[in-house]
Structures are given as C-alpha cells and as structure tokens.
C-alpha cells in the first residue's frame, strides 16, 4: 500500500520533469592512467618570531622538505622562483603568486625559541583550491630535538596529503660494514631515517648481524657470535644495555619480535636441524612451533600476531610458508620459480616482502599473504633482507654489487616499485631494520 502511494507520488512529481524530450544525458568522459610525478610544493623559509629562533628558520624547513622530497612524491619548487613570501603565519597566502609558479601545496611556518624550547607552527595550504589543508599545527620540543620537530612536521604533511601515516620521525638500526670481505668488520649502528645522527652500538670485535626493532619500543634484538656461537641478544639502543636472550644449548638465530613486543620468534639449530621457536620474554621458556627435519628459519609474525610466515626447504628448496603462531599445519604460499627467503609481513598486513633468488640474481619482491599477486621490485647481484617502513609503504633492504672489494649499501624502494634509491647514508651497511615511529 505504502509502496503504491510512493509510486504514485513519484510519477506525479516526475511528470513535469519528463516533458522535454530532448533533455540530454550528461556527457560522460572517462579519464584514466593518471600521471605519477612529484607534486610541486612551495616551502618558504619559516618566519622567525624572535631572534634566537632565526638560526632554525631555514634548517627546519630544509629537513622537513628533504623528508618529503625523498619520497619522490613531492618536489620543492626552488625558493628563487617564489614571487612573494608570507610575512605572517595567520595571513591567507596570496594564492595567485603560488599558482603562478604552479605550486600545489604551500607550507607556511613560524618558529620561536625560549629557554631552549622551540615552538614551531605551520599551516598547509592547497594552492589550486585556495584552501587550508587541515588545521595548523604547533609543535614544541627541546632545541636539540629540532630535527625531530622537522620530521614530525613532514609526517603530518605526508599524512594529510597521502592518507597514510608518515615514517620520517623514525630510525634505522643496521650493520655497518667495513674491511675486505674475508676480514669484514661488522658493527651495529643506528641512524635517523634521513641519515643524520649516526651512532655505533657495538665495537666491531664481535660478529653481529640481523638487528630487528621491537615494534613497540626502542629495543633491538640481534644475532652475535660474541660467545663463540651464534646467539640471540637484546639491546636497548638508548641505554646500550645488552643481554643474551637465553642460556641454553644450540645455535639461536633469525630473531624477530612479536607485534606486541612480548615475544621473540627465532630459529634454533640442534644437531644440524633448524626449527622455529617462540620465546616469551617473560618466562624465556622456548615453545616449539615447527618440528621437521628440514630447515625452518626466518620467521616473522603477522601484524595481528596470530600467524607466522617463515621459509623452509622441506620441498627441496627455500619456499615461504604460513603457520598458526601456536603451531599446526604449515601452508605453502610461494609457488613461483626460484627460491624465496626472508619473508617479512607488512605492518599493515596486506603484503609480505621477501628475497627471491632466480637465475643467479637476487630480487626484492612482495606478495599477498595468500601468495597471490607476486611482484618483484628490485634486482641485482645481491638484494636481500627487506624491512618495512612503519606505514607499510616503503621497503628498505641492502644491496651488494658483488666483487672482492664490494661493500653493501642500504637501499629503499616504494612498494609501487618506484623511487628505488640509496638510503641517505654515506657508509656501507646491511641488514637494515626500521624503527616504529618515535613518540
């Protein structure tokens, strides 16, 4: 009944509109295959609100802009091209001056300093539409943390424009390498994501490899031969404090934290056979996850902690498998040609990154957790050991070009395959691990 009334009303209302028989449908046009090119941004030197802040006015912008342009999603329009510069943070920019130089976004900021504390404020403007992108932000921090203030700004801007969290206020722990291949010296080191503040964490007498960050803190787990055998160690990178994970027989290696930081998954080799174990950091009592005469190693938790992806040669060569974190049936997920190794689950869960070997070359690739949609992103003599930026959009890994004198370099690539580049680090390194975002 109701329906009939509604239908009648609909007909009555539509009738007059239906009269002009020549009314055209809107013209439909589809536009596809968009450009992928850096977005031009303008970032004038910040306004110094008092004399003491003046020295930071351009450094803050430069560090922030360097973060943004390093993604290859943005490029800075050279300041020399700017027609005007904002004199006040709260003034609406003269957009015509920024449209004239084809700026898409304009970042205007101010900085002041008092008693060693910097106060930074900025606004992000969308130039074509002449509107503000989100609210202005104010950041306060110690003067010595000025680079972090810049990274935080870059994170906020990146997030507003791309819809994903940024990854600029982060650090990389890695293995700094030096010396010839047969007398290689390896030291744990930590560096800001943009290459600043390099600091060594170990001395170089002990062989150390594969540091990995706790996703919830600034704690690192790594492998060291300090006791004469490969053993897993924990270190607080801020205090330098170290401890062996456990004192039990066997070689332990390939450690990684669980997503909540409460457990470690790793390999234990006894009698030449390598299986996967979980060690809760509270009890430190090993829980066996796999039990097979083949090699099971390079385990990594899924972001929800319910599954573990690892590599095994049970089929005859290295392939990737997923198993429930408490043990159970392992399901093979890699079926392409070649060998698959070092699986690492993306923090956002949608992809698993891996190292692939095929035809004498090494590749970094990604696939979905069910093994579908495999894509290789890089290739070289040796590309190995991917690690995810905390937003799951960028991978870092290391590359060795081969040769008696070659030293590895840290590289990064976006999961789209774009922006393959050397990490901004001027020393050789391997085994990078990305920290979570700092607080």
């Amino acid at each position, binding site marked *: 009944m*109701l329906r009939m009334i509604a239908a009648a009303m609909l007909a009555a209302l539509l009738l007059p509109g239906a009269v*002009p028989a020549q009314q055209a449908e809107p013209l439909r046009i589809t536009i596809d295959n968009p450009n992928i090119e850096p977005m031009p941004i303008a970032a004038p030197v910040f306004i110094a609100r008092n004399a003491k802040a003046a020295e930071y006015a351009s450094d803050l912008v430069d560090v922030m802009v360097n973060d943004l342009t390093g993604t290859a999603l943005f490029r800075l329009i050279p300041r020399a091209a700017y027609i005007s510069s904002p*004199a006040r943070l709260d003034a*609406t920019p003269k957009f015509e001056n920024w449209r*004239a130089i084809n700026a898409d976004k304009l970042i205007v900021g101010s900085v002041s300093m008092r008693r060693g504390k910097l106060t930074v404020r900025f606004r992000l403007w969308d130039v074509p539409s002449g509107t503000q992108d989100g609210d202005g932000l104010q950041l306060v921090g110690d003067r010595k943390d000025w680079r972090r203030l810049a990274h935080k700004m870059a994170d906020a801007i990146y997030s507003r424009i791309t819809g994903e969290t940024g990854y600029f206020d982060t650090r990389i722990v890695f293995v700094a*390498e030096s010396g010839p291949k047969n007398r290689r010296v390896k030291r744990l080191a930590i560096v800001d994501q943009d290459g600043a503040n390099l600091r060594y964490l170990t001395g170089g007498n002990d062989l150390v490899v594969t540091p990995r960050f706790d996703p919830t803190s600034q704690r690192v787990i790594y492998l060291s031969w300090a006791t004469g055998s490969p053993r897993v160690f924990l270190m607080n990178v801020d205090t330098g404090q170290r401890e062996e994970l456990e004192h039990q027989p066997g070689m332990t290696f390939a450690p990684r934290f669980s997503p909540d930081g409460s457990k470690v998954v790793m390999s234990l080799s006894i009698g030449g056979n390598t299986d996967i174990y979980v060690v809760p950091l509270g009890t430190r009592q090993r829980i066996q996850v796999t039990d097979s005469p083949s090699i099971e190693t390079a385990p990594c938790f899924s972001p929800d902690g319910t599954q573990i992806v690892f590599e095994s040669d049970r089929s005859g060569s290295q392939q990737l498998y997923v198993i429930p974190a408490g043990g159970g049936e392992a399901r093979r997920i890699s079926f392409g040609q070649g060998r698959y190794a070092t699986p690492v689950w993306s923090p956002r869960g949608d992809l698993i990154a891996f190292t692939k070997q095929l035809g004498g070359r090494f590749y970094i690739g990604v696939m979905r957790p069910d093994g579908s949609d495999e894509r290789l992103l890089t290739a070289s003599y040796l590309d190995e050991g991917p690690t995810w930026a905390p937003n799951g959009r960028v991978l870092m890994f290391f590359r060795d070009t081969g040769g008696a004198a070659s030293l590895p370099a840290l590289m990064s690539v976006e999961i789209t395959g774009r922006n393959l580049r050397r990490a901004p680090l001027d020393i050789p390194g391997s085994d990078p691990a990305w920290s979570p975002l700092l607080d």
Partner: protein
Amino acid sequence: MRRSLAISAALHMIIILLAMFSGQIFRSDEARAIQISEVELISPAEFDAAFSTAPEAPKSELPSLSPPELDGAEIDAPDAPQTPEKLAIERIGADRAEDAPRLDAVREEPRPDIALDVPAAPEAPVDSAAPEGVSLITPRVVGPAIPEQRRQRPDATTLAPESPARPAPRISTTPAPKPPTDATPAEEASPEVAPSDTATEVAEEKPAEAPPEAATEIVPEVENEPETIESVTPLASAPPPKRPRRPTRTAEARPEETRPAPAASPNSAQPRPSTNRQLGPPVTRQEKEGIALPIRKHWNFATLAGLPDADSLVVEIRLKVTPDGRIRDLQPYRPRNPEGNFRRAFDLARRAILIAERNGALKFPPQEKYERWKEIILTFDPKRNRVGF
C-alpha cells in the same frame, strides 16, 4: 503507530523526491567493486632500463669505518640515556581569511567562519608556549581541535552567477598556452613581483610566469599592517584582518583576478539555450579528448598510488558548463560525499580540472551541441600499469 510511520515515510519520500527533482540525479552510492589490475610483466630490457639509474653500492669503504681497537669501551656509549623525548603536538585553529583569493570565476560557497566555532582560546604568548623545565610534554590542546567534519571544504565550488563580465577565454582558435611544468623561467621577471601592497596589479594577459630562478626579489606577503616580530596573533581565534578591498583594476586584469560581480548583467552575446532546443549531433571521441586530455595532463596520482586500495579510488565529478565554455559548477558525483582517501582522490581530480581551466586548455565541443555538453560527468579511474615485473 503504523499511521505515523506511514506519514513519516511519505514525508521522507517527498523530501527525497524533491531533492531528485531539484536537478540532482539520484544515484545509489553503491560501493564499486574493487578491481585489481593484473600485474604487468615488463621485459628484462625495460627492467634494466628502469634500474639502470639505480645507485651503485659504494666501491670503497669509508675511512671513518676503521674498526676501533677495543671491544666494549669504544661503543658510542650514550653519555646519557638517549631516549628520544616526546614532542608536543597541538592543533592550531583552522582560521582562514574571508577574502582569500579564489580561482578564476570559481567561488566557494559561503562558509561559516570556522574560527567562530572555536571558543576563543588565544594562545599563550609566543615565548611561554612551552612549559618550562619539562622534558616530556604531552600534547596540549590550544583551543579545541576542530573535528574534521566541521571543517568546511570547498568540494562544492560553485561558479559565480551566470555570465561573466567579459568573454571567457576560449582558446579553440589559438594554441593553448603550454602549461608550465614548473616555474617556467620567463624572459623577464613577471611584473607580479611588484610589491603586493601596491594594490594595482599589473594588467597582464599572459598566464603568470615565474621569474627566472634568480628572482629579483621576493616580496613579503604583508598586508597593510605589518606585524612586529614579537607580536602575538592568537592562532585559534579570529581570522586575519580583512584585506582592504583593492582599488579597481584595469579592465584587462588577469583572469585569476577578475571576479565577476554577482550582479553582473547576463551575457547577452551568449543567450542560454532553452532546454527544448535540439541536441545536435553526438559528441565525437575527438571532441571528448579536447576535454579529457588537458585534464589528464594535470592529473597527478603519485601521492595516492601507493595505497592498498589505490585502484579502487575512482571518483566521478559533475561539471556544469556555460555555453561559452566556463565551468560554473563542480560537484563530486560519485561518491557524493567523498571522505578519507576518496576525498583525497577527489581533490587531485578537481585540481586537474581547475588547472586545465585556468590555463584555458579545455576545448569544449561546438556550440551546436551545447545541450549535450552543458553537463559533463568525468570519471577519474586511477588504474594504470604498475611498475614491477
């Protein structure tokens, strides 16, 4: 009970129908199926080409890496615990000026002054903003953060009423000005370098050009009340002082600067065709390209291309176009109220349209077909070939 329900339903129906009748074409916002494009294989040659610029690993070690003599002591032992301190982050008000310059002939719908919604919480004076002697600062809110929804965004950019005071720049006969890729160096510095507070803008027909990279000078964007450095402007309170109305400009002012007065007389040269008029022949593919190509040229999807759902961020935009080829209305069509990443996708698409229009690059089909193109729905489908192999 049932009766009141029925009445309510009927009233709702009427409202919906009225909305439909008032010109909006009703469409359900059904979710589009997510489509995943096939992974494109590229040839080894292409791959090598793509990576040929890949940086080489360093060929030699750095001297600074020479291993230290001792174990243990030579670590860069943190002098103090190096725990990174928390940084305080706060929002500052979403103030905006009322007289923000706007796009050529495009006017945003009047919006409430958002700053008024914010209980005035003038920020503490500049130099006492940071609590002293506290190293770990938790975020402190200066004035309530403004919820995302309450922030007005100019999705509904509505055109100035009907007709412009001048003929819109139709470029169909002359080659469209080459859209500058960046700050295209001009032969000479663009006269816009003139200080902005000398209110007479220089009449300049050509699209604004950036001065050569060695700019003559950069002019501070000062309004007529220069701020002393130490003075404090509450961030979350009132919008900046109104810019004084500019003196009248020369008649040939640049398109960006000429905003037709709302009450401008209708353009008699281009009478609005009646709706009963003949439709004319169908719009050809080539004629569609005259609209699509300039827009695609400015459609840059880089910032969203890495999202897991990037390919599904298809947005449709409805344009209403005047007979003389100006966009008088630009609305999101599907999704109707884009949010989140659809919002960002919409922004990128709108940007492309606005720049193409500003450059005078859009070429609409001939007048005789106006009934067919007075309303255009543009579908922006970001699917593209992926990099990788």
